[in-house]
C-alpha cells in the first residue's frame, strides 16, 4: 500500500462526521458511523477492498455476540473482533432478532479492522496519552471511542480486552493448545503471558491461531 493511500485512509474526519452518544457512567463517547467508514474505505482504496466474517460466536449466557472480521485490501489483511449485545424482548426474554445483532457486531468488526489501517485513529489518540485534535467548539470531549460505550477499559495503555482474551482461549482450545503452552508461546514471542498481552499483540496472536501458525506442542 503506498503512502498516498495510507494518508487518504488516515486523514482526519471533519467534526460533522464524528458522532457522539451518551456512554456508561455519564461519559460522552465519540464514534464514526459504519457508513462513514465504508465511504472512507471506498474513496481511499477506490472500492478495491472486501470484508469477510471469519467466525461468529453467540453467547446467550453472556447476552453477547462476537464476530471475527477480516478486511482485505490488496495484499493487506487486517483482522479484528466485533461484538454486540443480544437484544431481548423485555417481557419474554426471547431474542428479538439475532440477525440484527450479528450485523451490529459485523459493523463493529469492520470499524475495528479499518482502525488497523488508520481509519478514525484520531478518536483513540486522546485515550493513549497522545494529543488529540481539538474538539469542536461547544463539544467538549470527555472520552473518545469508535466503539459502543464500554466499561472503564483495563487497556488504556493497550492491554488486551476481555473479548480478545476470551477468543484467544477459545481458539487455542480448538487447536488443542492448553493455557501453559499458550503462555509459553506468548513468553517467547512477547515476553509476557497471555493475560498481559497488548491489544496489538493479541490481534497478531488471534491471526496466528486462525492461520494455524501456532500448534500444540
Amino acid at each position, binding site marked *: 500500500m503506498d503512502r498516498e493511500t495510507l494518508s487518504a485512509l488516515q486523514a482526519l474526519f471533519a467534526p460533522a462526521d464524528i458522532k457522539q452518544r451518551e456512554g*456508561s*457512567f*455519564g*461519559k460522552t463517547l465519540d464514534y464514526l458511523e459504519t457508513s462513514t467508514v465504508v465511504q472512507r474505505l471506498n474513496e481511499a482504496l477506490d472500492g478495491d477492498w472486501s470484508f469477510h466474517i471469519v467466525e461468529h460466536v453467540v453467547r446467550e449466557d453472556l447476552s453477547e455476540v462476537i464476530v471475527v472480521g477480516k478486511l482485505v485490501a490488496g495484499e493487506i489483511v487486517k483482522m479484528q473482533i466485533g461484538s454486540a449485545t443480544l437484544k431481548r424482548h423485555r417481557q419474554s426474554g426471547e431474542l428479538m432478532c439475532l440477525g440484527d445483532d450479528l450485523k451490529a457486531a459485523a459493523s463493529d468488526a469492520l470499524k475495528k479492522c479499518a482502525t488497523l489501517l488508520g481509519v478514525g485513529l484520531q478518536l483513540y489518540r486522546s485515550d493513549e496519552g497522545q494529543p488529540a485534535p481539538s474538539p469542536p467548539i461547544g463539544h467538549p470531549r470527555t472520552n473518545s471511542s469508535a466503539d459502543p460505550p*464500554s*466499561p*472503564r*477499559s*483495563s*487497556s*488504556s*495503555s493497550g*492491554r*488486551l*480486552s*476481555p473479548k480478545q*482474551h*476470551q477468543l484467544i*482461549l477459545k481458539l487455542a482450545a480448538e487447536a488443542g493448545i492448553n*493455557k501453559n503452552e499458550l*503462555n509459553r508461546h506468548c*513468553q517467547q514471542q512477547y*515476553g*509476557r*503471558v497471555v*493475560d*498481559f498481552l497488548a491489544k496489538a499483540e493479541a490481534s497478531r496472536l488471534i491471526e496466528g491461531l486462525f492461520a494455524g501458525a501456532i500448534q500444540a506442542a
Partner: protein
Amino acid sequence: MNTPARSLQQLRQELHVSYSQINTYLTCPLRYQFHYVQGRSPEHVGASLLLGSAIHSSLAHYYESLRDKGAAPSGDDVLDHFREALSRQLGQVQAPILYKAEAPDAETLLTQGEGLLRAFLVDPSFQGMEVIAVELPLQATLTSADGAGHDIALIGAVDLLLRDQLGRWLAVDHKTAKQALTQEAIDRDLQFSAYALLLAENGYLEEGSSLHCAFNVLRKLKTPKVERHLTLRTQNDRQRFARVADSVLAAIEAQVFVPCTGWQCADCPYQKACADW
C-alpha cells in the same frame, strides 16, 4: 445471595485480579511483574508455602465434612488428608524447596504440620455456627473512584463462611504463622476487605452493613497452638479496598514495576532475577 455458578478455576480463565495479586504488587511491584506478567518460574519454593497449602486443604476437608455430614471427621482422617496433600505438594513442585531452620527437611515439615493440625483438632472452635461454604469462589466488578466499572473482575475464594444463630455471617481465613498477629495488622488486613467486597457484590451483605471476620491462625511454635482473632469490615473498608485495587490496576496498566527492598526479599523466589534486573 447468588449461588456460585463457577469454580475458582473457571473464574481464573477470565481476565481477573485477586487479593493475592494485589498484595504481591503492594509488597513488590517487580516481583509481581516476574510472577504474573512474565510468568517466570520461581527460583525456589518456600517450604512454608507448601505446608500452608496442605494445611488449608486439610481444614477445608474438615469443614466440608462438617457441612455435608453434620459431623466432624476423625482426627486420623484429617491427618491422613494432610499427609496426602503435603506429599502431593512436595511431588508437584518443580523448583528447589527452601526449608527453614524450624523445619529443615520434608520429614520435619510433615511432623510440624501434624502438630499444627492436632492443636486445631483439640479446639476447632466456631462451635454452634453453621458451615455455609468452604472455599467459596466469588467474582465482583471493581468500581473505580470515578464510578466506572472495570472490565477486569476481582475474584477470590473465601476460606470458610459461617453463619451464627442470629443469621450473621462470619468470614474465616486460615493462616499458618510463626509470629503472633497484632490486632492493628488484623484490623488493617486487606484480605478481609476483599472478602467483604466479594460477599457484598454477591448479595451476602446489604448496603451499608458490615462483615464479621476471623483469622484462624495455626501458630508454628514448639508447642503449636491455635489463635482466633476477630475483626470487622465496614462499607468504608470495602470502598477503600476498591480504591486500592483501582490504583494497583492503573499502576499495572502503566507498567510501573519497580523493586521494593525490605523484609520480603529474604524469601523472594526471584532474587536472582531481581539482582539481574
